[in-house]
């Protein structure tokens, strides 16, 4: 049920924060907003009654709906009317506003070079919106450094925060429809679809939208179902019976299990939930590597109005001193930046050699700061962040702002065994692992015996049902890990091991429960929670938010910057003067990225000499352009030969579209 009620609450607790002043300074205010509990209760689970079905703990409440988001954004603007501007850059397919929030630090000019921050390209990734809001508040509240009271101690003065000179354009939620669907407890595919939609018949059977995944058992969750089937190709892993894996054919194994989304076969075609309404994914809607002919891709890049509006927003911002972008997404280029391939005419994922040092330096510092190490990059096809970098030439990093952690199953098993011995001594060291016949789910056992699959008995304890009981003898690599196991399977094993090691994270993998499927008969429902890989643990959220601030600070420090070097006027005699201007690229990154240089998307810088009216230009041009400043000193020199009166003043100014503007003067000797 989708509950809405108007209440006056402190939003920071609603967002699951430890303390409003610590994480969302200024947000410890009362708002008239609407709380939208998801079907999986956001409150702490109650102790199960004796003999009751085991309850899976609920995810922490990090969700805010569109109304709450708007209230937060408006409040922020109200509190900082001179440094925060809120506007719509479009409307979603479902008619929801697409917000653009522009904030700047106290030292930033309204036209200062800016960074674009985009969050929640997949609206289900609600935590990204929270990161975006946190960064907005951080920029607005960045305080000046404390001045040392002791003049002798001035060297110890705190460094001014780069956020104070930061201008940040924030898209806090690029996919509001997706967020609302999550908050309503509906499947992803229940999001609105464009009118006259192209993708209404995903299974190409000539019938319009049928049914996608659905909540069959009424537990408020659409998870997975697994069952024995004549076309089954998987089997239950002996070591980790919560997971299915490919069989080891060389060992004579064969598969009989299938795993599908929790769904029905409405049209009797032996496919389950294969024709949901909305299949086009915003995250796959951008030109680079656009995965044409996949359901997620849509008929063309920019088919969804959200994608098109976002690209048009960038094109507009390019006229407003935009120099870089940080995109929170499932695809990550921050932690392990790679170099793009130089083969072929078409751009490939990764940084050009000229930009790679910049990315690697930020990555290195980020890892030092956050203790977040390398991880898979994710799917790069059709990604927005690639479009920003490869095709628009903006310094762009993509950060997966949360990733489900992994642990070594062996180490966790050893810990569990120790704990077991300490607790009750029931599991002695060297105890043999409970093996397949006992562990095999009930449905398989029944089928193996030649009977119709029957549901497994309800486990008395969720932990028992979901964790393999092992002793220390199992410290060797589990059999499932060495053969018939894909990298994905191994990753899931390690993620399960981490979940098992945590006290409050069992909700991420739902205990398999027997269920009588209306089409299939006995099946098991459970498996990965839809939010398992999206929402960070409550205990980690502060760490991730702090990491985001550090990352933004570092990005701000690396903003391109061009400055005057020398400006000289050399008298040659007889009123002839040689003017020379040196421009220096003093930023951490060249003011024209290698990608922008390749894409020719960035305007060059302009240098203008303002000569006295009574002077005569003899050699050179009064307006000169400069591109990327190459060479060891990253500078360029510009000369003019003029005839002018001694004592005249020559004014010189330069302007760039992303690295500032400045002017200087020289008086002719």
């Amino acid at each position, binding site marked *: 049920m989708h509950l809405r009620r108007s209440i006056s609450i402190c939003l920071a607790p609603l967002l699951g924060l430890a303390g409003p002043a610590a994480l969302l300074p200024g947000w410890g205010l009362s708002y008239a907003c609407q709380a939208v509990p998801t079907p999986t209760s956001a409150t702490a689970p109650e102790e199960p009654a004796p003999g009751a079905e085991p309850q899976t703990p609920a995810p922490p409440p990090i969700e805010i709906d569109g109304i709450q988001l708007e209230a937060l954004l408006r409040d922020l603007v109200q509190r900082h009317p001179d440094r925060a501007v809120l506007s719509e850059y479009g409307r979603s397919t479902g008619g929801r506003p697409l917000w653009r929030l522009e904030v700047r630090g106290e030292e930033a000019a309204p036209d200062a070079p800016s960074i674009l921050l985009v969050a929640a390209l997949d609206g289900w990734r609600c935590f990204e919106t929270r990161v975006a809001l946190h960064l907005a508040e951080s920029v607005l509240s960045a305080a000046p450094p404390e001045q040392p009271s002791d003049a002798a101690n001035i060297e110890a003065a705190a460094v001014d925060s780069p956020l104070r000179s930061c201008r940040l354009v924030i898209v806090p939620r690029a996919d509001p429809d997706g967020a609302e669907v999550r908050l309503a407890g509906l499947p992803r595919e229940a999001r609105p679809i464009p009118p006259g939609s192209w993708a209404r018949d995903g299974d*190409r059977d000539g019938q319009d939208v049928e049914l996608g995944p659905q909540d069959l058992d009424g537990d408020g969750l659409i998870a997975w179902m697994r069952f024995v089937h004549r076309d089954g190709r998987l089997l239950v892993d002996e070591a980790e019976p919560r997971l299915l894996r490919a069989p080891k054919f060389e060992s004579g194994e064969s598969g009989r299990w299938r795993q599908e989304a929790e769904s029905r076969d409405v049209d*009797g075609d*032996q496919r389950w939930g294969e024709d949901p309404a909305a299949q086009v994914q915003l995250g796959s809607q951008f030109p680079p590597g656009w995965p044409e002919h996949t359901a997620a891709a849509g008929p063309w890049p920019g088919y969804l109005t959200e994608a098109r509006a976002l690209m048009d927003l960038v094109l507009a911002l390019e006229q407003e001193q935009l120099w870089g972008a940080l995109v929170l997404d499932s695809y990550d280029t921050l932690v392990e930046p790679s170099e793009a391939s130089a083969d072929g005419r078409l751009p490939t994922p990764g940084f050009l050699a000229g930009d790679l040092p910049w990315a690697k330096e930020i990555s290195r510092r980020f890892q030092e700061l956050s203790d977040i190490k390398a991880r898979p990059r994710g799917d790069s096809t059709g990604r927005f962040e690639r479009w920003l970098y490869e095709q628009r030439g903006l310094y762009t990093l993509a950060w997966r702002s949360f990733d489900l952690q992994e642990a070594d199953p062996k180490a966790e098993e050893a810990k569990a065994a120790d704990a077991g011995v300490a607790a009750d001594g029931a599991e002695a060291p060297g105890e043999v692992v409970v093996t397949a016949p006992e562990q095999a789910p009930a449905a398989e056992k029944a089928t193996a015996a030649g009977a119709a699959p029957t549901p497994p008995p309800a486990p008395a304890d969720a932990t028992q049902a979901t964790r393999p009981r092992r002793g220390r003898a199992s410290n060797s690599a589990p059999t499932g890990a060495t053969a018939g196991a894909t990298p994905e399977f191994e990753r899931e094993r390690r993620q399960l091991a981490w979940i098992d090691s945590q006290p409050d994270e069992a909700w991420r993998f739902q205990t398999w429960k027997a269920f009588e499927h209306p089409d299939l008969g006995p099946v098991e429902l459970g498996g990965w929670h839809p939010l398992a890989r999206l929402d960070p643990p409550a205990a980690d959220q502060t760490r991730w938010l702090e990491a985001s601030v550090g990352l933004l600070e570092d990005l701000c420090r690396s903003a391109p910057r061009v400055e005057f070097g020398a400006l000289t006027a050399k008298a040659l005699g007889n009123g002839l003067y040689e003017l020379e201007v040196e421009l220096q690229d003093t930023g951490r990154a060249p003011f024209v990225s290698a990608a922008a240089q390749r894409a020719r998307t960035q305007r060059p810088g302009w240098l203008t000499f303002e000569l006295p009216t009574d002077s005569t230009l003899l050699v050179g041009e009064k307006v000169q352009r400069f591109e990327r400043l190459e060479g060891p000193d990253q500078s360029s020199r510009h000369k003019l030969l003029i005839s002018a009166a001694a004592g005249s003043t020559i004014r010189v100014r330069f302007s760039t579209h992303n690295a500032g503007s400045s002017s200087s003067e020289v008086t002719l000797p």
Partner: protein
Amino acid sequence: MKAPNPLATAYVRLCSAMAALNDARTPRSQRLARHLGDACGPLRKPRRSTTLRLLPATLAACAFGLLAPTRAASGSEPRQSPAPAHDTAAAVASQDNERLPGFPGLAANRRPSIEIPWNRLYPLNELYGHFDCLAAAHPDWFSATTIGTSVGGRELRVYQLAAPQAADLHLPAMWIDGNVHGNEVQGSEAILYLAWYLLENKDSSPRVAELLARVRFYLLPSVNPDGRDHWFYGANNASSSRSGIQPLDSDRDGLFDEDPANDLDGDGSLTQMRKYLPGEGDYRLDPSDPRRMLPVDYQPGRPRGDWIMLGEEGIDDDQDGRLNEDGLGGYDMNRAWPSFWAPNFVQFGAGPYPLYWPETRAIAEFILAHPEIGAVQSFHNSGGMILRGPGAEPFGEYPDADTEVYNALGRDGEKMLPFYRYMVIWRDLYTVFGGFVNWTYEGLGIISFTNEMWSERRLSPDDRLPDGREGDLFFNDSLLFGAGFTPWQAFDHPLYGPIEIGGFQKDVGRVPPSFLLEEEHHRNALFCLRHAEALPEVELKLLSITPLPGQVFAIDIEAHNRRLIPTRTSRATQKGIGLPDQLSLTGPDLRILQSGPRSDRFRPELLTLSTNPNPGTIQRDEGLFFDQPLRYRFFVTGSGPFQIRYQGQKAAPVEIDGQLP
């Protein structure tokens, strides 16, 4: 000759004003049109009892020539052009019973019911005027839909042509467009010719009638109406005004379209500038014809030329030291389509993302909404080419079965279009990322061609003219009476000083001269019809009903595509584009037990049994190929009548009936 029919005379007046009707977008003109509406009744064409689809008020207003010119929403202001002048005598003769019917390409004693001068090229409002005249004359056959507007606010009109009896039927369709590049204009007239030809001959040619009964045409005369009008009304040359008119900062100086070429001599064309620099140039004048510049290769110790070429007419409008570096627009709407699209730095003109411009997006949405489109033709100029994809080598090859279809049509095209060559874009011309016909085939699985209209070899079919400018100038002098070349004239340029300006007019080089236009239109239009005739046509045959034990019958059916284009291309099958074909058997008193395609014509027991929970419907993702009949068997029980139906997105559904004992 009979006396002029007053109704016909009035009708011709109506058509003559139709171009101006296209300008009727102001509230005043709309009020006027409404006011005049009641007067329109007698103007209806007498032979048809159906009502005109155009608004009566519009017709009347058009007939009296009262309406104002088109006003673009933004961008350049279109100018008014004279309405097309229709020959009253010809219209009168169209009522003449003594003439032979139709106008099938035979000239003797034929007079079309609507005369359109085919020796001219038309600016947009005149072009739309001709189309509207056809629509007014054949309202049940031909109608217009506005699918969007250009950057400049001009209408993008798609004209639909099909037999009235097929109005509500699912028919395979052909999409034809032209003029995506503003200067490549004559495709629009070829499309007009195609519509005119079909409508003129639909009552007299059984083949035309059959075609229109089974194929629908979607005709978009101008993809780039802004560029077209700019080419007609602005100073241009044969290659300029290719882009649309959305301002672009081509030179990245923060200003948009601020330094275009300039018509310095005011002759309406952008010709060339040359400067005399004795002993310092790269050219010399041809002693036999000083209009012609002969290049002089630099070699040490050899004299250099006396002239340099300075490019298109123009001045440094923005005072940045460069000439003509940021003209109108500066993009290419034939590089903007989703399949194998590449960014601007790889493919010039591509824009920031596919379908960025409203014209391209409107077309994509229309085509996507019409999955029955099974053939595409796009007209460009020039060079005499019948082009197909792939546009870029990394794409690889098209599937063999589709290539065979392309080859058959392309080679027929070579026979129909003298000096045209059937070519693969990347291999035989140049690499194109994001081309329109690449998208329609690679993205949508539609057999698609681009014709680059007009080959200059037609100026001298037997090669008696010399190559190059010498031949061009001879042709200009002898067959154009000098009209196509602006003589070099002195001009005092603000940057270069004394120079000369001159050269060929904009309608020389890429469009045929007036007297060769009709042939170009006819041959290209008929190539389209060849393509359209190849759209799939499925036949069903009930081969046999065989009684089997247990009150079961085996019903054998043959499905056959009589035409060259398969109901689903191999590309569509490979990529899962669109819906599979479906063969279904239904009957009120039947139960279908099993079904499947037969794999051996002599052994009916060889069957691939259906896995569909409903065996009454067989899906065929591979479609039906030409001359490869497929046999199916249904096992049924019951009695009475039954119906068999074959349907596909790119074929008209076909049904046959049968009866069980």
